């Protein structure tokens, strides 16, 4: 074979689009279509495979945590214990101040015939939001436990953190309100002022931002409330960014609870 013929066949064989990749693409499209036609059949299979893996991982993690606690310095554990006791006392005192407000809230609910707290189911988190960039997590309750799509999900202290995105037989996928780009209606205001409805946009990992006119007075540390009736705390303002030439101000706030440290959540049963 001459040099030119060899070169042509070399270029031809190495510039051709690999056939296996075409096969993979066709397979991917077929799998996506199959999942769509079976109403999430493949997702259901993956979740049933994932449940024992996630539970084993949680078990192994607990073992490592117990071992690390047993070898931790006793002094540091005592110091941590003392600090947490002080924190509990401080929070109890703060809670007493809210007791009056809670009683008043219950009274108004009765008048408006909106009495009755929603029924909740406690769910353990199997896979945390840091698993992917989607800001979703998997819990161990599903259709058989009465969970429905779009049900509200609460963290510690009744803080609304997201909603049920998809329900499977024994698991559910929860989408956080802080999913990048997700828009949520919230209430902004303080004691003695009128609450203003604002749209908050998620930035991921429990963080949000909103753009409001500079005329609305806000301060760092103020609470942001959920727009649902009985509105729980949605977030706490952390930073206010103003530019002299901009008639709007950017408010950065985050959820008061650390999503990554959550072990259980409550899901509203409708």
């Amino acid at each position, binding site marked *: 074979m001459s040099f030119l013929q060899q070169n042509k066949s070399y270029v031809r064989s*190495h*510039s051709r689009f*690999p056939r*296996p*990749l075409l096969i*993979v693409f066709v397979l*991917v499209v077929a*799998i*996506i279509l199959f*999942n769509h036609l079976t109403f999430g059949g*493949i*997702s259901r299979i*993956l*979740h049933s*495979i*994932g449940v024992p*893996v*996630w539970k084993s*991982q949680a078990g192994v993690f607990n073992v490592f945590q117990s071992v690390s606690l047993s070898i931790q310095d006793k002094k540091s554990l005592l110091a941590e214990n003392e600090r947490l006791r002080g924190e509990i006392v401080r929070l109890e005192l703060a809670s007493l101040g809210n007791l009056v407000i809670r009683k008043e809230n219950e009274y108004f609910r009765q008048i408006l015939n909106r009495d009755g707290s929603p029924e909740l189911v406690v769910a353990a988190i199997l*896979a945390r939001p*840091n*698993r*992917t*960039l*989607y*800001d*979703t997590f*998997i819990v161990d309750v599903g259709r058989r436990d009465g969970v429905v799509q779009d049900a509200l999900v609460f963290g510690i202290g009744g803080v609304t953190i997201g909603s049920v*995105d*998809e329900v499977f037989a024994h698991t559910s*996928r929860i*989408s956080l309100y802080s*999913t*990048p*780009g*997700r*828009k949520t209606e919230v209430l902004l205001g303080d004691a003695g002022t009128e609450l203003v409805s604002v749209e908050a946009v998620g930035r991921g990992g429990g963080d949000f931002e909103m753009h409001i006119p500079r005329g609305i007075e806000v301060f760092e540390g103020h609470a942001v409330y959920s727009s649902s009736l009985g509105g729980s705390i949605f977030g706490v303002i952390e930073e206010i960014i103003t530019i002299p030439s901009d008639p709007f101000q950017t408010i950065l706030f985050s959820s008061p609870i650390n999503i990554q440290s959550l072990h259980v959540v409550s899901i509203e049963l409708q």
Partner: protein
Amino acid sequence: MIYRIFFTILFFLSTFIFPWYATVCFALLLLAVAPGYEIIMGGLILDFTYGTIVPDFFTSPFSFTIFFTLMFIVSYILKKHLVFYQDDKR
């Protein structure tokens, strides 16, 4: 071959166990030792298990599938130009 099997198992396990950046690292290792078609399947697994519509990610619930496909295509093009991969076995 043994490396390919080892990294493939690690990669698919990491989709359930490890954070996404560990999965991306295993995908890169797999691409280094093999053609790496498996990473596209791994992207599908991530999307079917955890995926939801994310407005900031082109509103697609298949962001990882698209990302790993692009990774594969880039690695394919790079390998064509690298002397290290001018070998029929790879």
